[in-house]
């Protein structure tokens, strides 16, 4: 939902990043307002995951230039946990396994960490159990998932559902979902999409990183961005996703280079 007067939640300006001396992001610009759904598409290796990891505060990726403001504050100086506590969420492209820690334990710790940072009461295991069971239904997950170790032995689809479950529990203000749709069959895709849609609200925003237009059949984006070579080289509406699906990415690059040459 595009509302020109809606509050800016996330403002990325000329963001640069390098890994081992090699530039990965080369001046990314992105403005996300409350209520909006953004899709970032682009070929493999174009820097999509790097962008969202920097936004979430991954220690191995640091910005080398530019700025990011999250609800008016300098995001890049915040610790990763402070970002999460402030309502930023990253759904991982490759969720990590945590051996020996049950999903229930992990989810409750995460939930309570965010709650207490917001000055709200923590839930005890019984109260939390009621809540998590309700949220499990959002992603059509069996309660037995709570007893299993975090992501350990989960199939690709189960891991992605687990990400959405965490999102449902933490109720983020800005959710960055990195290829949450990849590796999902059509049923799982629907489940994940319904989960995401259930969480969208006028005061929140979603940024989807995706390869495929098919997710966008279920989650309708307000903006579609094309990322290439560490830059956003084109932005359009949802019809751009269909065009990319039909024509690939090359024409976007050609168009972008032509425009640059003219300018």
């Amino acid at each position: 939902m595009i509302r020109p007067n809606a509050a800016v939640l996330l403002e990325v300006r000329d963001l640069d990043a390098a890994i081992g001396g090699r530039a990965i992001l080369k001046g990314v610009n992105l403005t996300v307002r409350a209520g909006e759904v953004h899709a970032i598409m682009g070929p493999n290796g174009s820097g999509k995951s790097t962008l969202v990891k920097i936004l979430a505060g991954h220690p191995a990726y640091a910005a080398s230039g530019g700025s990011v403001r999250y609800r008016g504050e300098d995001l890049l100086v915040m610790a990763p946990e402070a970002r999460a506590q402030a309502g930023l969420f990253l759904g991982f492209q490759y969720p990590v396994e945590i051996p020996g820690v049950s999903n229930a334990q992990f989810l409750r710790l995460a939930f309570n960490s965010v709650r207490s940072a917001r000055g709200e009461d923590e839930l005890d295991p019984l109260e939390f159990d009621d809540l998590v069971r309700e949220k499990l239904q959002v992603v059509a997950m069996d309660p037995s998932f709570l007893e299993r170790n975090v992501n350990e032995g989960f199939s690709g689809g189960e891991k992605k559902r687990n990400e959405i479950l965490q999102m449902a529990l933490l109720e983020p203000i800005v959710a960055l979902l990195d290829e949450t749709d990849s590796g999902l069959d059509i049923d799982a895709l629907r489940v994940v999409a319904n989960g995401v849609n259930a969480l969208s609200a006028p005061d929140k925003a979603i940024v989807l990183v995706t390869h495929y237009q098919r997710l966008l059949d279920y989650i309708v984006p307000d903006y579609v961005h094309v990322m290439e070579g560490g830059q956003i080289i084109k932005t359009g509406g949802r019809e751009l996703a269909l065009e990319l699906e039909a024509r690939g990415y090359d024409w976007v690059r050609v168009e972008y280079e032509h425009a640059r040459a003219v300018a």
Partner: protein
Amino acid sequence: MTVTRGDFLDTLLGARPPTRDDAGWLSRLRAEALERANALSVPTTRDEEWRFTDLAPLTRLSFQPVRVAGTPDLARLRERFLPQAQMRLVFVDGVFAPGLSQLAAAAGACVSELGSALQGPRAAVLEAHLGRLAQFDANLFAGLNTAFLSYGAVIALDAGASLAEPVQILHVATRRDQPHAIYPRLLLAAGARSRCTVVEDFIGAEEAGYFSAPVTEIVLERDATVEHVRLQREAPGAFQLGTCAVSQAAGSHYHAVSVVLGARLSRLDWRVLHAGAGCQSVLDGLTLIDGRQLADTHSLVDHAHPHAHLRQQQKCVVSGAGHAVFNGKILVRQAAQRTDAAQSFRGLLLSARAQIDTKPQLEIFADDVKCAHGAAIGQLDPEQAFYLQSRGLTAPKALNLLTYGFAAEVIERIPVASLVRELECALVERTVESK
């Protein structure tokens, strides 16, 4: 030439031998052990087997024998009682405490204190096995234990017998005016096809100072199954020098989980002998120490017959200036063809001063065998830490939860659900909620 062996050993060896009126064979066994212990000296770091474990802090002290047990904190002690154990033997400062123990009759099985076991119908089983597995010819601490053997726990299962619920052997040390020496002993003789679970638990009052040299002997006859849990949660100032000797007959199955959390200095010599074909052994170990603790586990699995199966995993988590030692020897004798053995060691160093020394030792003399081992010592994975932080956990909380998970993987192997929960809660307190 006279050798001064120091106060430590003199005091121990000078103790009055037990006066209990026992069978002649037991008196002879004690005398033999005393003679042997008299001829041995305390191992030093010059001994290859003790390279990393310096007993100097132990030998600077002297420990008095216990005549009368102290009074334990009953409330704390009861917290350690396993709810589902219908049989429990409790020893206070090494002395059997019938009032705290709980014994029930079981078909085809005897669970009792050594004294009454010697009078019972299975006395011959005792004579056949006691002191036979834990050899003391080169093991001073097993020698001391045997020389001063007075109280002990005995579990003897007839062929085909099975105990549905775990048996708990609980040793508690109290705080006394002078540091004391205790010699816990367990003999478990599992008859053919019998099954049981035993939980040995060593605890001590917070301020207690003592030296404990426990000996556990486990015999599995043909096709027997034994689940063995050993929890070393001695007092922070205690010394434990333990021996666990296991002998497996053909087709038997031994699964053990050893958890080492306590003591200022501890060592476990753990020997598993395959005395018949087709034995299965599963050994899980966890050492979790900090401060200035030193914990050494030396294991030896001796494969002497074909078609053996071993799965061994050892994990050590060390923080502060703690020092963990693991030496896991796997011996595959020439006769042990088609042995399938795998050992994995994983160490986690949580501080710059923490230390882990590990040495896998594979000695393989058979040609048709599968033997795998891996050892890794490292820090926590930053990708995992970031994942947790991205869910709102502070950096220290994230690291603690990962430490917890690393250790919990071994705890989960304990076949007693209530104990898994108890230890996991203790682990959470020690890790997740510690910062």
